[in-house]
């Protein structure tokens, strides 16, 4: 029972992170119909920029004790940085290729991803060694059931992720910008004719996705404290799993991405706990193959016939 609760807690914690990252994939796919391979690298950038900013602020501020709002300050800084990077990526790399064949856009996305990874590896940027983020919050146990502790850090991570997802849901389904996004996703040409500023909506989507990615990276760093070097394959795997989450939930579907993220978290953690922990990546990709075989449109997505 304790093991079950512990695994459930872990899977919610990690699943909500996957969901946050999956949202960025799914929004960009919904609008531009391509996999933004660079998204996972924006997550890495989020983690590393939080680390660098936290270190810098801590050495320069000279606090006796870290103030409680310091974490949110770091998060906002990371969000601003990643949002800017996301905007620039779209503006410089993807916009010139609007209307180009999908393969070219895909290759560009891979190029951007490689660029972010390897530029980050350079010695004067982040370097090739893992580093630890300073403690932003003093961790303590909030609630104990049996022998399972619910820690403050886990709670913060989960609540932040859920709050952002609720906010995003509100933004997409209840605001004017959200309506414009859905319109562009439905048909960019028609939306343009109806007066929707398509380019601005696409830029906004990228910034939004990058902000969520920054949060994902920040929470990741907070949870694991050690931040791996930018080209570490672990990061690519995180991105891939988040993408699998988006596909499982139904790519292009915002609520599906949240559901898919939690599903991946549950699968991975329960598989590790009850079957074999070394094969946790294998479960996730097997799920992807199964979904592609039997329900390629995902849990919440509906099959869209290809139009000429």
């Amino acid at each position, binding site marked *: 029972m304790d093991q079950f609760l512990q695994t459930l807690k872990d899977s919610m914690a990690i699943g909500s992170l996957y969901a946050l990252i999956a949202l960025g994939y799914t929004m960009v796919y919904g609008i531009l119909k391509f*996999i933004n391979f660079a998204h996972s690298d924006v997550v890495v950038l989020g983690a590393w920029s939080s680390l660098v900013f936290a270190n810098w602020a801590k050495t320069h501020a000279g606090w006796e004790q870290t103030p409680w709002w310091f974490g949110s300050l770091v998060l906002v800084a990371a969000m601003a940085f990643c949002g800017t990077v996301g905007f620039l990526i779209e503006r410089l790399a993807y916009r010139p*290729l609007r209307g180009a064949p999908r393969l070219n856009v895909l290759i560009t996305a891979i190029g*951007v*991803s490689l660029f972010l990874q390897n530029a980050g590896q350079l010695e004067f940027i982040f370097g090739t060694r893992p580093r630890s983020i300073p403690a932003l919050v003093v961790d303590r146990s909030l609630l104990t059931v049996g022998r399972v502790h619910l820690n403050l850090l886990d709670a913060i991570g989960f609540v932040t992720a859920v709050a952002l997802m609720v906010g995003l849901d509100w933004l997409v389904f209840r605001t004017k910008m959200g309506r414009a996004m859905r319109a562009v996703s439905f048909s960019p040409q028609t939306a343009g004719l109806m007066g929707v500023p398509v380019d601005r909506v696409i830029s906004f989507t990228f910034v939004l996705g990058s902000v969520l990615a920054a949060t994902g990276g920040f929470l990741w760093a907070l949870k694991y404290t050690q931040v791996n070097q930018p080209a570490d394959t672990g990061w690519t795997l995180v991105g891939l799993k988040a993408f699998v989450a988006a596909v499982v939930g139904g790519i292009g579907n915002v609520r599906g991405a949240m559901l898919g993220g939690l599903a991946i978290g549950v699968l991975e953690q329960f598989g590790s706990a009850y079957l074999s922990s070394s*094969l946790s990546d*294998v479960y*996730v*990709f097997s799920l*992807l193959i199964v979904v*592609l075989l039997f329900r390629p449109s995902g849990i919440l997505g509906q099959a869209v016939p290809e139009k000429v």
Partner: protein
Amino acid sequence: MSLLAEQARSMRPAWGGSLARGLAPLAAGLVLAVVLQVFIRPYIDPYPAKLLLDIGINCVLAVSLTMVNGFTGQFSMGHAGFMAVGGYASGIVTYYASMRLWGSPEAAGGVLSGILDLQGLPLVTKGDVLFLFSLLVGGTVSGLLGVAVGLPSLRLRGDYLAIVTLGFGEIVRVLIQQTRPVLGTAEEVRSTPTWQLPSHVGGSLGFSGIPTYTSLFWVYLAVAVTLIAAFRLKTGTFGRAFLSIREDEIAAEAMGIKTTRYKVTAFVIAAFFAGIAGGLFSHTLGIGLSAEAAGFLKSFDVIIMVVLGGLGSISGAAAAAVVVTLLPEWLRPVAEYRMVIYALALILMMIFRPKGLFGVREIWERAAWSWLPGWRPAKGARR
């Protein structure tokens, strides 16, 4: 019907002539491979020889990936995964078969193998036969995995193949790391049941002790076979179908082309040749075959070769394989910037020269050669 069939039969060339014409390129490749091994290899240093080997293996990889990424316009990102599978499979065959048959994993090859001492050896020995067999096993295993990976993902349109193949490479890496240590002595090998041998490939320590059969001869023979297969695919019925899928999948389907079948065919053939390349790689001197061979970096290297060479140009991919293999030598002073430069080159290329350096055309089909007598533009090539 019968009239048409008769007409067709009368147009068919005599079988002897067509056989000779069909085998001529292979014979040329064989001659080139023998010349490289017997007349050039003894007179060059080990280092340039190793570079020549790398160039050849990368050529096989790039040309085979061109069949998927270039001809059919799909996007496979796990080519290194197939290469690793082929490398391990053929390594298992040669290592454990040598142990079982001859009691030691030493290479028992002739002049055409990667043995430095060429005196008094026959041209081909039992070891070479075993090596050739192991290469075919590696290619076949890799090709079968290609079916398993390709069928679910290639039924769908779009970029799923990229994700699935990327995940595939990672799964291969993880699974290889779970394997058990290599069996070091003939007694251990004899006492282990055959079906358990494939699980003894060293885990994360790597698979060491594979006999070194790979030589310039075998590598360039493989290059010749791959090039011939690629050209025949591209210029034949399959090639027209592949290119039509790449240009417009819906239109191709409307013309009655079974798109899924052709895509899977291209993917499996590419996986087969990647497996062969893996076999050649794993039997090279001084290679500790490890799970990292299946990683993203190798896949990205091959993708860069294909994109630089032009998506669909066989000669372009081969030329790019040469350049990309030699480039790290020239870029050594700025080694840490190498991948940054590659990445920028990829992005800029897609923006300013979206079809790659050569596009779908072969090098000699370019208009720059139009002053040569007898030059003809490519059949059906766009622009």
